[in-house]
């Protein structure tokens, strides 16, 4: 790589959180441990800690997402930060103002942190390189490239049920090619040493060189489910598909949908996950999504703790570097 990754400083500490590139198992584990410590905050009478009091977090969403934006907003507020929500979908940027010019204008916010979601792969890294150096950037999803906080909350949830990744067989089903969630999940699982990561889907939805992502392609879902500890369904990203990737949702469900019968092929204590929003009857049967093995709702609450951890670690690292 010719350009240094902006997310790590010289000592390997997180200055931004853009993707899983270059993150060690120790760093990932530290984030998960910090998230575990922050998780109970929501159960208390006062659901906040004062870590980011006086700091401003700006949500820069160039792509619509109420769920993710609300999740980041809540995490920031639980850390006592001030939150600004900037809607850039229907704004001058959409009208052709360059991203760079938009960033210059946003400097006036004097935010300590940008949480960014953008439709182009590489946008988060671009913003980290070109925003003011005092701003920390958290990637809330960039094109098809990465959604690292989702990757984190997925492995956080898995760890709570199955603490030893080196023993796990994980199966990812569905749209990997268009999915930034899949890329971040694959990366996080690889870093944590997952024993085996199986990727299942029609070849139009699985990249030809999925081994570059740490996964092993298996064409048949039933075979892939045998011995699975964790099953992750992925959303069909219809809005990112070009051409004839999948003829219909019905056909997809018949061959790749996670039904109760298929689930019974996995280990009896296997857990079922989905990043949401879940398309019932397309990726997952309704009764499986609501069933005893599903941890989908846990994933949502995990998102809060994980985002609080990342935000406080990144700003904490920066404060320590500045003071040094």
């Amino acid at each position, binding site marked *: 790589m010719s350009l240094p990754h902006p997310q790590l400083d010289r000592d390997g500490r997180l200055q931004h959180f853009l993707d899983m590139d270059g993150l060690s198992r120790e760093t990932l584990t530290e984030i998960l441990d910090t998230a575990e410590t922050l998780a109970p905050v929501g159960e208390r009478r006062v659901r906040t800690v004062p870590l980011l009091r006086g700091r401003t977090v700006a949500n820069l969403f160039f792509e619509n997402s109420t769920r993710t934006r609300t999740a980041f907003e809540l995490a920031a507020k639980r850390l006592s930060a001030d939150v600004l929500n900037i809607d850039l979908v229907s704004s001058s940027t959409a009208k052709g103002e360059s991203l760079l010019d938009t960033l210059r204008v946003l400097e006036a916010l004097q935010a300590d942190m940008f949480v960014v979601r953008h439709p182009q792969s590489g946008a988060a890294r671009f913003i980290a390189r070109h925003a003011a150096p005092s701003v920390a950037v958290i990637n809330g999803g960039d094109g098809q490239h990465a959604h690292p906080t989702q990757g984190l909350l997925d492995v956080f949830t898995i760890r709570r049920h199955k603490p030893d990744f080196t023993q796990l067989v994980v199966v990812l089903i569905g749209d990997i090619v268009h999915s930034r969630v899949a890329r971040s999940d694959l990366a996080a699982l690889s870093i944590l040493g997952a024993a085996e990561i199986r990727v299942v889907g029609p070849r139009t939805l699985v990249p030809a060189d999925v081994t570059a992502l740490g996964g092993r392609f298996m064409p048949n879902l039933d075979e892939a489910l045998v011995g699975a500890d964790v099953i992750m369904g992925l959303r069909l990203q219809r809005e990112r598909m070009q051409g004839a990737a999948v003829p219909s949702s019905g056909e997809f469900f018949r061959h790749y949908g996670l039904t109760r019968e298929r689930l019974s092929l996995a280990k009896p204590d296997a857990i079922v996950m989905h990043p949401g929003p879940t398309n019932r009857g397309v990726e997952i049967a309704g009764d499986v999504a609501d069933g005893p093995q599903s941890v989908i709702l846990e994933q949502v609450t995990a998102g809060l703790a994980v985002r609080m951890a990342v935000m406080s670690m990144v700003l904490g690292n920066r404060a*320590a570097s500045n003071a040094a």
Partner: protein
Amino acid sequence: MSVHDRTTVDGWLAAMVGPLTDFVVEHPDTAFIGIRRGGVDVARLLHRRVAPDAPLGELDIAFYRDDFGTVGLHPTVGPSLIDFDLHDRALILVDDVLGTGRTVRAALNELFDFGRPARVLLAVLVEREGHELPIRADVAGHRLAVPADHYIDFDAAAHEVRIALR
């Protein structure tokens, strides 16, 4: 380096038992809370000697410290463990060493985010000179003056208190 041995430390703890017992008699719902990490050991020792059936909790103040802006996030041991309701309850807040008072300030802030206690008594094994905040121990096993460039450490396993240069 100077060391205060097991016998000496036991003497300090013994001196604390009396006033704490009086407090518990006056407030039958008292709970003990130890501040991680050194305060947890002292809290256990006092809890066993004063009121073994009382609730016992642990407080991790990592998210309430006042030095986040210069040092960043301190590594955490885990979440605070308080599985009882604080509201309207009397608390004995325990730490091993009270120095500047900043740890206790953070602990109090955190406690009040859990609930509103009726009363908080601060009990420390050693209180040293060098307060930077208006916080004093209600009950202290021992008080001493130690130069600022020395630290005081309570070794729970060896049941000793060591004072040495940083």
